[in-house]
């Protein structure tokens, strides 16, 4: 009997998820023993045409990491969906939009203007920006580039997804469990996030030091304080998103004295991670005075970047709706920022 075929693909991502697969270390040999990897651009020399040559549903499973930003990524997502029995969103970006999803605070035009013209490190006097089609010389040959969409989307906003492996990158334990579940055909209902469905605090080694009632008089960032390596980070005034985040990561960040930033996303009861995390943190503020509360909240420098670090595209609002000239995030960006985000380019 031939081995089941699997594929890996990356879209708008950093490559860290590929690294996570490699982090399976010797266990990858067990995986290779059980399955045939027939597509993995980062490691193996198979091409898109090889995938096109497969029968529909011939891939037993395909793991796709990265958010969806370009037309090429959309095409690949659709192609892989067609060829795979199980399509698995691998990592924060394909699950919730991830860090690339924060680009939804701007649109295509604003990003191109900044990246190709305005950034301090750029010299581009002719104002050259990427074109979707470039005609070359006299022979009329045209080079094409994928089109760059206005918004970043999650994989499940592009094609139907069977399962999600959360995390930035997904923890090895979660990957190993998922692979085992697939090989043994012991999978939960379609659409499940393949990780424990409880908050990170539940598995946090600092949990015993968490007071019954947390009351924060100050919100600190890690560089502003000497962190006690044993005590609950929230109790030390550090903005740790553990209470709002799904567990399953075996707490590497908190163990290394870094507050949780929420990469595993919410538990199944929560629709909008950022709103819930904001709610959790705001409730812990120990003040009943309007002005003092406002002053304490000011210590959260970047609310969107803090609470939606990995999930802006999957959030209820999905992106910044328009630029408000009074918006603090836009101050100092000048004329550029006041142009309203033109709609319609995004399907």
């Amino acid at each position, binding site marked *: 009997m031939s081995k089941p075929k699997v594929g890996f693909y990356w879209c708008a991502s950093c490559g860290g998820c590929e690294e996570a697969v490699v982090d399976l270390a010797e266990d990858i040999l067990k995986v290779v023993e059980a399955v045939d990897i027939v597509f993995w651009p980062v490691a193996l020399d198979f091409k898109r045409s090889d995938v096109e040559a497969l029968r529909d549903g011939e891939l037993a499973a395909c793991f796709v990491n990265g958010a969806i930003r370009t037309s090429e990524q959309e095409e690949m997502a659709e192609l892989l969906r067609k060829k795979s029995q199980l399509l698995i969103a691998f990592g924060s970006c394909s699950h919730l939009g991830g860090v690339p999803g924060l680009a939804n605070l701007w649109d295509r035009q604003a990003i191109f203007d900044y990246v190709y013209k305005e950034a301090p490190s750029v010299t581009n006097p002719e104002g050259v920006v990427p074109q979707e089609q470039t005609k070359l010389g006299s022979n009329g040959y045209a080079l094409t580039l994928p089109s760059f969409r206005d918004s970043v989307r999650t994989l499940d906003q592009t094609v*139907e997804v*069977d399962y999600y492996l959360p995390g930035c990158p997904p923890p090895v334990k979660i990957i190993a469990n998922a692979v085992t579940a697939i090989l043994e055909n012991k999978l939960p209902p379609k659409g499940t996030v393949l990780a424990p469905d409880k908050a990170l605090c539940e598995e946090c080694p600092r949990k015993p030091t968490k007071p019954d009632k947390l009351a924060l008089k100050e919100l600190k960032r890690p560089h502003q304080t000497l962190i006690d390596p044993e005590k609950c980070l929230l109790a030390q005034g550090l903005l740790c998103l553990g209470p709002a985040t799904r567990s399953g990561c075996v707490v590497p960040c908190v163990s290394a004295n870094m507050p949780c930033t929420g990469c595993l996303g919410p538990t199944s009861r929560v629709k909008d991670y950022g709103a819930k995390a904001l709610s959790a943190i705001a409730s812990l503020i120990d003040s009943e005075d309007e002005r003092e509360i406002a002053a304490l909240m000011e210590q*959260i420098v970047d609310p969107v970047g803090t*609470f939606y670090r990995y999930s802006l595209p999957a959030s209820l609002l999905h992106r910044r709706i328009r630029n408000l000239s009074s918006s603090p995030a836009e101050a100092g960006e000048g004329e550029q920022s006041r142009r309203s985000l033109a*709609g319609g380019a995004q399907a």
Partner: protein
Amino acid sequence: MSKEWEPRIVAFFCTWCTYTAADLAGISRMTYAPNARIIRVMCSGRVDPQFVLKAFADGADGVLIGGCHPGDCHYQAGNYKALRRYTLLKRLITELGIEPERLRLEWISASEGDRVQKVMNEMAETIRKLGPLRLERPLPQPLTSPVPSPQAERVRVRSERGAVPLTVSGSGL
């Protein structure tokens, strides 16, 4: 849309103070702007920031939250929780391009029917000046149907035929 645009406001009123005040305004035959859809909650502290964002995402032009005056909360501190969340949420929505005036928190006690009238009128006026929120793009929805949560939240909805238990699947909304 041939009809002239009217502000759509979602109002979350706490049952002990602001909702009772709205009742009082009604009984007292006070007239005020009819733009708000009032949703009764047990406490302003029950207003999850997700409710507010969901309202905006689904077409509300403004969201009003009404609770008991500081110190008067039926549950001791729910309104303070509401205040803290509101303060931070207001900054968040501003960064996401929603004018902060579209979200308003008001303390209205059960006896202040006239204040309901005033706040409702002001809110409708504010939103009218701001114009429609108009989310320009259709918001992408997941193509995968969500898995019902194992601990699906149970809420009770009161209908004319009495209390009907309703199971709300995973979303928490």
